[in-house]
């Protein structure tokens, strides 16, 4: 269960960012922003190979004392960044992958919507619902 999920466009501006409301959201915004560097670094590292050979799931970008940041990039250079609470040790890599997959699927659905212009902020309710389901349930 993530504490913050963000969708970053190719040009590195956020298309969608949502955090658990209890925390200082700005902190997460900053975290996501800094993680973009790591994402770019990972992309460029594998960039030698063909794009289709590149793994979409980037894995743990970097851990901090409180949380871990995972990354995922699509073939169109749209990035998904997920911040997960470190205390949630039960969260395994597989689950992170599945969460990213769901995000990707929902994002694809949004793209299929002709009323959505790529580059716009994401306002889809379905996407919101899906993200809510993945966010931590903070009482």
């Amino acid at each position, binding site marked *: 269960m993530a504490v913050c999920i963000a969708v970053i466009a190719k040009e590195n501006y956020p298309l969608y960012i949502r955090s658990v409301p209890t925390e200082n959201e700005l902190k997460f915004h900053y975290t996501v922003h800094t993680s973009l560097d790591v994402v770019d670094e990972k992309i460029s590292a594998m960039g030698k190979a063909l794009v289709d050979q590149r793994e979409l799931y980037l894995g743990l970008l970097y851990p901090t004392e409180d949380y871990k940041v995972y990354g995922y990039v699509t073939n169109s250079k749209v990035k998904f960044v997920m911040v997960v609470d470190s205390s949630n040790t039960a969260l395994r890599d597989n689950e992170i992958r599945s969460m990213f997959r769901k995000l990707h699927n929902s994002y694809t659905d949004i793209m299929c919507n*002709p009323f959505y212009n790529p580059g716009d902020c994401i306002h889809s309710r379905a996407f919101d619902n899906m993200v809510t389901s993945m966010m931590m349930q903070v009482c």
Partner: protein
Amino acid sequence: MEGLTLSEAEQRYYCDLFSYCDTESTKKVASNGRVLELFRAAQLPADVVMQIMELCGATRLGYFGRSQFYIALKLVAVAQSGLPLRVESLNTVKDLPLPRFVVSKNEQESRHTASYASDADNPASYSGVIPPPPGRVQAKKGSVSHDAVQQRTSTDQESTSPVVSPQQSPPTSPHTWRKHNRHPSGGNNERPLAGPGPFWAPFSEAQPGSSAAGDPIWSGHSPPPHQENWVSFADTPPTSTLLAMHPASVQDQTTVRTVASATTANEIRRQSSSYDDPWKITDEQRQYYVNQFKTIQPDLNGFIPGSAAKEFFTKSKLPILELSHIWELSDFDKDGALTLDEFCAAFHLVVARKNGYDLPEKLPESLMPKLIDLEDSAVVPVVSEVGDQAGEVGYSSSPAEAPPSKSPSMPSLNQTWPELNQSSEQWETFSERSSSSQTLTQFDSNIAPADPDTAIVHPVPIRMTPSKIHMQEMELKRTGSDHANPTSPLLVKPADLSEENKISSSVKFVPGNTVADGYSSSDSYTSDPEQIGSTVTRQRSHSGTSPDNAAPPPPPPRPHPSHSRSSSLDMNRSFTVTPGQQQAGVVAYPPAVPPRPQPSQGTGPHVHRPVDAEGLIAHTSTSPQQIPEQPNFADFSQFEAFAASGVNEEEEDEIETHPDVLQAEKPSDSASSLRAAKTEGRVEDKAATSVPNNTGKGTTPLAPPPKPIRRRLKSEDELRPEVEEHAQKTGVIAAVLASQPSIPRSVGKDKKAIQASIRRNKETNTVLARLNSELQQQLKDVLEERISLEVQLEQLRPFSHL
């Protein structure tokens, strides 16, 4: 009851009223509460109401059936017109105005009724106030929300150009709606559905003709809640004419609705949505949608691409956000294109939205694309069946009752689809899971696929019982006709596992009979002693690879005293070829050699005798080594004779080594004991002859016992030709050969190698044992001497210590 004849308008009106009162959707009985309310709204004195009720027979029956209701209504009309209430007046009074039901708060109902009746009756008798156009309805917001709605609904219809409605933004008008009508699904039957129809016409690029024809004169029932707002994207006056007839029915119904709704608590109705599916598409609506679909995509089975749909729906002037949401809801398969069903659903949602209804979070069931593509039946003749339809629709299409035009399978499909939709989430997860199996990281969620091509990760059950094939193989082995093939695979495995297997295991277990694997009962084995090696190796290999084998191998029976190990082919051949000649590699096995798992044993010595590796591995080399000794087993007398005769002829070492080696390699206990005895005897003899030699012999073995033995072996190899040249030896060998039982040729060289190594080990053991005994003896002697010396010392020593 006397027959009641009603005019068309009356019929419709009454039908609608009845449906309004039919809260339980029984279509048979109007609820008393509603009826009474209705009567109250008629603004009639109570006694008149009572009279009416009596007359219609409701009091007699206790409920209001349809006929009673109609009669009652007629009587109300009669009463309102001032005529005396008489039963006979029901039919006699002509041109009776429709009964008026007035809502306390709103006088517009009267207007509605007036408008309702205006079509059929003389509007003169009524206030005939034309309701303000929808646009101006806003001003009357103060009134009850539903009233406002009603105003809006009704006005349009009366207006000459229903299509022409001010393009008001939807959100504004249904303001009050939203307050009360959060759930579009909640009892909206009473909301008149002004019908999105006409305003769609404009939706298009003003195709009056086509759109007019298709204008859905939505009987407005059901669905999108209050389609009171006939939003028009473009004005198409020509359509109004065509709408005249249709709207009439629609309007009637809608007004009735409004009337009905006005008198009752809308909130209550909203809750009871059991008989109303606000999202259901009526026939007219559907037809309209279909026509619109055709304008974009002529093929009804085809798709509308997203871009075209976007243009189309953008014309509705809804905000992009809402259109986006509508798209999300309606594009069921998420393919970026709209099928007919999806298009209709989207259209319907737009209409609803236009009329102020909030978009649902999830696609309503009735809008879900049907699993089976329904034929778009011809437009249901509205004219003739207005009444029925109105009545039907008035019931607001209880879920159990599907609209007549729709296929009967639809409701079931509708019901099934939601389940599928709900399970689509599960589908997604499954697909996600399956797709995730691309990487092996999800080993915890996926068991390694049982792909026969992939390496077997988990133990695979192996054959436990022999099969015919195995039996055949065993036979083959026995016959020795094909020793190479059956045994080679067996031997290969053992060779691999020889290291791990207990090479020096003294367990002479008899492995199962199966050739390939498994531990079968040893029963069958005993009959196949020669299979030991292969089967043993097999077993061992399996024990290594398949830990899940059930039972451990049965304890092998005691080794046969008979020589079960087949001599190598070459040996036999060599023996037979050169019976009288001792060749380098021709040595006969002693018959007393017990069965041994040769492969493991064969390599054992390899390990232990690295020096002689090259010699040991080669069967020819080992066998010859063993062979020379074997004659000793077989014929000790000969051995003794040999020893006596041959000792002096050869070097002592060699002779000694030779018999030692020979003896050491005799695996049999008896032979070894004899051997030991003889060896000792020989040693003693040698000692007698040359003590230093013996001591040297004794000492030499002391230092590196194995090495000298090995050296002896080696030397034995060298000496072999010399040794074997002995006639006695040859005789012995021949005898041994003759005494040898027919050994299956199937036993490979490995077996011999193992046997040879076994013998060597034994030889080593015996040699060492001898040495040990000798040394012990020497120790004793020395100790005795020491004691004696000490005694002497004691005696000789002066009594100094005393």
